[in-house]
């Protein structure tokens, strides 16, 4: 009970040493001691009166109490010299406690004599036998035997504590009896001051120093002038003084004995006497001690609630208190004391031996509050002790002074904790050391500063010179004082000092009590902000004084090294390496590592975690090089699951809605049971190399993953480059021999080389061989495992293979790594550590380190660290389709443009999985060209809709490949079973600009139950092509046919002997035209075709001229020759095609109106487009020779405006006829021209027919012109005069006239103009209509056919 040692009433406690006898177990012994402690306070009333005693008959003061201090530690002999000065230091009683055994019963006395021999300084030796059966107790300890005994029997199981007290009373009786003898023996001894000879010089010095500080410290209350009182003593002569001093010392000693014996009133009287004598003889040390005794007595008298009378006169003098002062002190507190402390006011009638009865004028110290009184006493005690240093012989020993101070502090703290509430309960608590703070910390007597000042006094002395046990006790006591005051830093400092003291003075001493030390250390760790269990957080909420923490850690390490607690040592070493790395020089780091390894070597069972939680910095998945072959099924191909109501709901596109469908990343895809690689970055912040002895992957949800323990190597590129694809996954060329191929996986480089060389015996061929399943064949033998080394202060990247043993989603969150001799443990992938910087407010510390604080800080830790995970998707093994045969030699092919060629491929399912999904697609080199042009067009808006359509058509409609046996495949091959072959027949078409092409086959093992986890694999069959032009369309035009044209044609046809066959056909066609149809309803398409190939080619062109009319052309074109072909076709009317339809987009692009072109231009474009489409749909052409055949492409036709006009009817048709005025008959044609006579009257009849759906009105303009010279080139612009028709033609009417009526849709209007030609010549007569309509804006229509007139 260390705390009791410096209890204020400690001088009144009788020291009892308890020793084990009869070999009890430690636990039993502890039990016995606890039982004894329960009865450590004995009232004198309970002790059998012993009237024969000279001093200590309990009868005379029945209310007194004997206080025992039960201790189990052997008394130290060093303080023997103090026993005379302070008898309470002496161990008076030794008690042997043990378990009863039958053979002991008679030997109780024997034990006692043994104890006496062992502890000769004790005055009482007794034994207590525990667990004695009741019947034996009755025999051995008859209740009617009242003689003094030394052997006691006790049954702890049945008997209650009262009997224990009875036994203790018996012991007390023995004690009082022997104490009486002991005290008597002191009667004629001259008492000397306790001065330890060795220390005296030092003591004097330190006290001197202390005094100096005291005076400079400026605590006014302490400046007590003792010297003023010296005048009284100065008058005495030396001899008398010695006598007086001796008397005083005797009285003081006796008083101390009385105190021990519980006779407090006697003690008080004796102390009073001592005070009187000692004060006279200037014996400061003894005086101080006596004064302290008075204080103790006062407390004890209050404790036992016995009224007492203080020796006011003597005390007042000694305390140098004036009357007024005492009155001040008492009056202040009267009100309080009435309620609290009425006892002390009861006048005592005790008889003082010196007759120092209270006289009325004396102020009553009894009226002063006890704490105030004690305070005064302690101040004086201090002062006396310090004064004693003046007297060399009678200097106070340090230990006495310090213990006195500690006792005072104990009292002050008690008062401080209780506040103003000083009552009987307080005294009891003070005596028992069970004062608990009640929260009221305001009291008029002591402040925290006062207490601290007392503590400071202790530090003014050299504690280092005291013996270790005392030092420890003192430090502990001070620490507990600080603790009481709530100064945890001070407390921590004290404990730290204590630990340093222990480690320095007692190295390698004792392996016991490591638990308690651990407790202290952990308390210190908490106070200094070291969190032993938290390795990860870099910032703690508490104090972060690294130098302090590191020093403390060093002490702790030192202590536990001597204690040999390896487990704890590992923790400490780890902590040092983890959190204080930046403070540790490389040497220390190496040493710590060495120590850890030594520990592990010496006891292999010791858990040795690795000290850096941030070891794994990043983990990357290295996708296989053929990663692209796995594609998740496109979403729309997946069957919709229970989406019935969704299907009916209208789809509303919300651009802000984030798609919840997880996008599939190819990168993180891996196939079950196949080897993949992980790239791991490990860090080594230490100044020593780290040896990674094992790595294995670890998933968050115990997903079965197998790490292939093979020669791990640093990531060098050679490891991957030299490595074929595992398992031959769908390699483009047939590679069935892959399973037999051997290849080196390990490409030993740099430091691995050495390691490998060491294990050269292990480098069997199997080391570098993969078996068919892709696993290494040597993973069974661990001797092949080559460890990796992370160099000091660096990062190192490693790769190692692993495979998944199950399909599903894996969340890789860390790695199991074992480093060097450390245990393998899981390291999470640490991404980042957040620092909490803005925390300016210090958290209020809890006194208990272990409770809430810890959990909250660890919670904060996990929040501070962000971990990353690697999500991987493991899928079932996928089927493999490989190409067996391609009928095209070497995959090279020459084609003519438009040529079709048939070939076939054979494929085999070379895997163990069934293929139940197969789709075909193609690629050729033109695609890219067209695509890039298309995408460019969007950017610059350079291409018209027409051109875009053409590009789209080339991209989408023009297929270069065709599967010929589709039906057969779908019927025959429902699934492709393992090792089954499939034949696919293709037809390839030669496309312009095509150089290479690919057949792409996508296949899969589609799972109906889990379509999301089905993946497409693809195989590509490349074909290299050379496409050579064959029949090309080099030019194209459209000629209109007029009603007159055929006439001229007919006439000339007779001469054309050398007519082409085509022309003949054309003529035939013309003839077949119904008579009621005008020839001008037709027009001619002119095509120029060229044979670019080096051989003769026969061509065949079919053209649907009308609904059922097919115009055919068959011809042979010689190499490098061109030929022109004419094709008649009906003109297209407005109603025949819907020109309002916009130009479609084959890519299903949104229609964007182009505002840069006008409405009319847009219409033109649409017309042009639809006419061309119409044309292309009607024409088809083929070419062939003996070996090759193909189609002719007419897509290069572009319709110009002129061509469109020729091909189409206009909306309004204007025709002219010239009539003779007399008979209104038509003037006959002669060839192209109409022959008219000059000076004859004719009528120009103009018929305007409205084919549009709008009524039309407008102005008709006749435009007759003389033809200058028909043979002349039109490009020559005629002179204005020449075009003048004045005096050439005479009109009867207006050349420009408003239409007399509105022309309704599908109605005709006839306008006549009579005229006569005056001058001979050739004339052209045309007309122009400025049409106005309600809905359509004004437009101009010219007559399609002008009238050519020859006037003669």
């Amino acid at each position, binding site marked *: 009970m260390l705390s009791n040692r410096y209890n204020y009433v400690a001088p009144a406690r009788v020291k009892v040493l308890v020793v084990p006898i009869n070999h009890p177990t430690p636990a039993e012994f502890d039990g016995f001691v606890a039982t004894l402690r329960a009865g450590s306070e004995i009232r004198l009333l309970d002790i059998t009166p012993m009237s024969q005693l000279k001093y200590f008959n309990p009868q005379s003061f029945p209310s007194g109490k004997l206080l025992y201090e039960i201790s189990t530690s052997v008394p130290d002999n060093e303080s023997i010299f103090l026993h005379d000065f302070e008898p309470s230091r002496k161990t008076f009683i030794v008690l042997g406690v043990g378990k009863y055994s039958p053979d002991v019963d008679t030997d109780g006395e024997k034990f006692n004599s043994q104890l006496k021999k062992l502890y000769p300084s004790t005055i009482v030796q007794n034994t207590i036998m525990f667990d004695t059966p009741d019947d034996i107790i009755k025999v051995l300890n008859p209740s009617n035997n009242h003689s003094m005994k030394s052997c006691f029997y006790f049954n702890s199981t049945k008997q209650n504590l009262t009997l224990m007290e009875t036994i203790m009373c018996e012991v007390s009786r023995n004690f009082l009896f022997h104490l009486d003898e002991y005290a008597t023996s002191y009667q004629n001894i001259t008492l000397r001051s306790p001065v330890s000879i060795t220390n005296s010089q030092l003591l004097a010095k330190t006290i001197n120093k202390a005094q100096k500080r005291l005076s400079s410290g400026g605590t006014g209350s302490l400046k007590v002038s003792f010297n003023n009182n010296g005048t009284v003593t100065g008058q005495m002569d030396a001899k008398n003084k010695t006598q007086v001093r001796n008397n005083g010392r005797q009285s003081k000693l006796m008083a101390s004995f009385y105190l021990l014996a519980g006779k407090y009133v006697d003690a008080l009287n004796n102390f009073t006497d001592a005070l009187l004598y000692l004060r006279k003889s200037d014996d400061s040390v003894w005086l101080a001690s006596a004064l302290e005794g008075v204080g103790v007595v006062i407390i004890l008298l209050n404790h036992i609630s016995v009224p007492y009378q203080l020796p006011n006169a003597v005390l007042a003098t000694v305390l140098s208190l004036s009357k007024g002062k005492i009155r001040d002190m008492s009056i202040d507190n009267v009100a309080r004391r009435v309620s609290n402390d009425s006892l002390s006011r009861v006048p005592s009638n005790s008889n003082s031996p010196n007759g120092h009865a209270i006289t009325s004028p004396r102020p009553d110290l009894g009226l002063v509050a006890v704490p105030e009184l004690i305070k005064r006493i302690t101040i004086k005690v201090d002062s006396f002790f310090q004064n004693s240093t003046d007297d060399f012989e009678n200097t106070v020993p340090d230990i006495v002074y310090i213990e006195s101070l500690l006792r005072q502090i104990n009292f002050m703290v008690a008062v401080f904790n209780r506040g103003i509430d000083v009552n009987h309960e307080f005294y009891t608590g003070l005596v028992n050391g069970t004062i608990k703070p009640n929260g009221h910390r305001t009291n008029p007597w002591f402040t925290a500063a006062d207490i*601290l000042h007392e503590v400071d006094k202790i530090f003014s002395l050299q504690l280092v010179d005291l013996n270790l046990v005392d030092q420890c006790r003192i430090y502990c006591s001070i620490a507990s004082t600080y603790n009481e005051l709530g*100064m945890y*830093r001070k407390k921590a400092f004290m404990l730290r000092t204590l630990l340093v003291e222990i480690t320095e003075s007692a190295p390698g001493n004792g392996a016991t009590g490591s638990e308690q030390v651990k407790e202290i250390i952990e308390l210190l760790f908490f106070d200094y902000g070291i969190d032993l269990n938290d390795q990860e957080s870099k910032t703690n*909420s508490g*104090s972060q004084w690294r*130098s302090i923490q590191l*020093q403390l850690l060093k002490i702790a390490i030192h202590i536990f090294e001597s204690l040999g607690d390896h487990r704890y040592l590992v923790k400490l070493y780890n902590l040092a390496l983890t959190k204080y790395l930046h403070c540790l020089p490389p040497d220390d780091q190496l040493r710590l590592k060495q120590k850890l390894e030594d520990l592990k070597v010496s006891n292999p069972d010791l858990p040795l975690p690795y000290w850096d939680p941030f070891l794994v910095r990043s983990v990357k998945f290295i996708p296989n090089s053929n990663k692209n072959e796995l594609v998740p099924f496109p979403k729309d191909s997946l069957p919709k699951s229970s989406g019935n109501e969704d299907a009916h709901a209208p789809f509303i596109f919300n651009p802000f809605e984030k798609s919840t469908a997880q996008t599939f990343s190819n990168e993180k895809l891996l196939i079950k049971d196949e080897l993949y690689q992980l790239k791991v970055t490990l860090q080594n912040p230490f100044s020593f190399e780290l040896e990674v002895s094992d790595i294995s992957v670890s998933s968050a949800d115990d997903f079965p993953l197998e790490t292939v323990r093979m020669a791990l190597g640093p990531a060098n590129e050679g490891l991957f480059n030299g490595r074929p694809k595992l398992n031959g996954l769908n390699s483009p060329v047939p590679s069935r021999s892959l399973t037999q191929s051997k290849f080196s996986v390990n490409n030993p480089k740099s430091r691995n080389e050495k390691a490998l060389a060491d294990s050269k015996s292990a480098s069997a061929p199997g080391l570098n061989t993969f078996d068919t399943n892709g696993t290494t064949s040597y993973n069974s033998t661990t001797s092949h495992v080559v460890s990796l080394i992370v160099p000091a202060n660096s990062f190192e990247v490693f790769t190692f293979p692993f495979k998944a043993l199950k399909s599903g989603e894996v969340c890789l969150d860390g790695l199991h790594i074992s480093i060097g001799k450390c245990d393998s443990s899981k390291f999470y992938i640490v991404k980042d550590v957040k620092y909490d910087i803005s*925390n*300016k407010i*210090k958290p209020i510390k809890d006194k208990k380190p272990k409770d809430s604080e810890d959990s909250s800080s660890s919670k904060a830790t996990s929040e501070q660290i962000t971990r990353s995970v690697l999500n991987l998707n493991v899928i079932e093994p996928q089927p493999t389709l490989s190409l067996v045969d391609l009928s095209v030699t070497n995959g090279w092919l020459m084609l003519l443009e438009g040529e079709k060629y048939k070939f076939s491929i054979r494929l085999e399912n070379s895997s163990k999985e069934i293929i139940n999904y197969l789709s075909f697609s193609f690629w050729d080199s033109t695609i890219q060209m067209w695509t890039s042009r298309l995408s460019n067009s969007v950017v610059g808006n350079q291409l018209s809709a027409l051109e875009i359509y053409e590009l789209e058509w080339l991209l989408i409609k023009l297929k270069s490949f065709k599967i010929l046996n589709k039906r057969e495949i779908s019927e025959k091959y429902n699934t492709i079973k393992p090792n089954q072959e499939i034949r696919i027949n293709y037809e390839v078409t030669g496309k312009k600009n095509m150089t290479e092409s690919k057949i792409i086959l996508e296949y899969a093992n589609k799972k109906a139950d889990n379509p999301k986890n089905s993946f497409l694999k693809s195989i590509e069959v490349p074909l290299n092509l050379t496409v050579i032009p064959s029949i090309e369309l080099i030019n194209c035009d459209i000629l209109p046919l007029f009603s007159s044209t055929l006439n001229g044609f007919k006439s000339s046809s007779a001469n054309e002997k050398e007519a082409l066959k085509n022309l003949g056909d054309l003529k035939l066609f013309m003839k077949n035209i119904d008579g009621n149809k005008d020839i001008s309803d037709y027009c001619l398409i002119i095509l120029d075709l060229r044979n670019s190939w080096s051989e003769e080619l026969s061509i065949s062109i079919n053209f649907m001229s009308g609904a059922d009319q097919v115009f055919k052309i068959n011809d042979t074109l010689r190499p490098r020759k061109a030929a022109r072909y004419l094709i008649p076709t009906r003109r297209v009317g407005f109603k025949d095609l819907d020109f309002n339809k916009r130009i479609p987009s084959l890519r299903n692009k949104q229609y964007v109106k182009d505002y840069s072109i006008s409405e009319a231009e847009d219409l033109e474009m649409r017309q042009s487009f639809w006419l061309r489409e119409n044309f292309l749909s009607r024409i088809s052409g083929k070419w062939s020779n003996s070996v090759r055949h193909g189609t002719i492409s007419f897509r290069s036709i572009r319709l110009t405006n002129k061509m469109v006009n020729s091909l189409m009817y206009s909306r309004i048709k204007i025709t002219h006829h010239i009539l003779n005025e007399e008979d209104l008959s038509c003037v006959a044609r002669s060839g192209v021209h109409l022959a008219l006579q000059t000076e004859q009257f004719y009528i120009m009849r103009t018929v305007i027919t409205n084919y549009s759906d709008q009524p039309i009105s407008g102005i008709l303009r006749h435009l007759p012109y003389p033809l200058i010279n028909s043979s002349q080139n039109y490009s020559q612009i005629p002179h204005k005069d020449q075009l003048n028709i004045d005096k050439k033609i005479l009109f009867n009417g207006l050349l420009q006239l408003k239409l007399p009526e509105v022309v309704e849709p599908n109605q005709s209007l006839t306008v006549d103009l009579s005229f006569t030609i005056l001058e001979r010549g050739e004339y052209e007569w045309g007309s122009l209509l400025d049409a106005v309509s309600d809905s359509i804006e004004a437009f101009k229509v010219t007559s399609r056919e002008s009238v050519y007139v020859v006037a003669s």
Partner: protein
Amino acid sequence: MSSYYFTIIGTNDTPLYELEFASFKLGGSGASQVPGKSQFSNNVKEILPFVTHSSIDLIEDVQWNNNQFYLGKVDSFYGLSVNAFVTQGNIKFIICYDNGNGRYDENAIRQFFMETNELYVKELMDPFYSVNDALTSPDFDLRIKLLAKKYL
């Protein structure tokens, strides 16, 4: 020649700045010593942070009973004395010193603290400095040393 150990403590008990030095005023015996080099023995050097740390307890006690920034001598441990100063932002300046020859000028320490506070405030205005960060500016260090030379 007195030796000093000066520390600036942040609001959460973390040291922001530490400096060990000795008085520049020649104190008779110090002829052979390097001026400004602290004369603490190794033992003492070791406990200086601890003493400083433990004195925070007392400073936190005293600072509420005092309306001065300069708190004077707040603590002592064996031969070491501890004086302290609290800034408006609750940053503590603590100086530990051994007044071996008994010569210690309270006013000098007060002046030293006052000017250190000015320096500290200037440092605090640095937009790149936030409260409770370690004071690593070499200029600050130099100025503190100049102050130490001037006053102590």
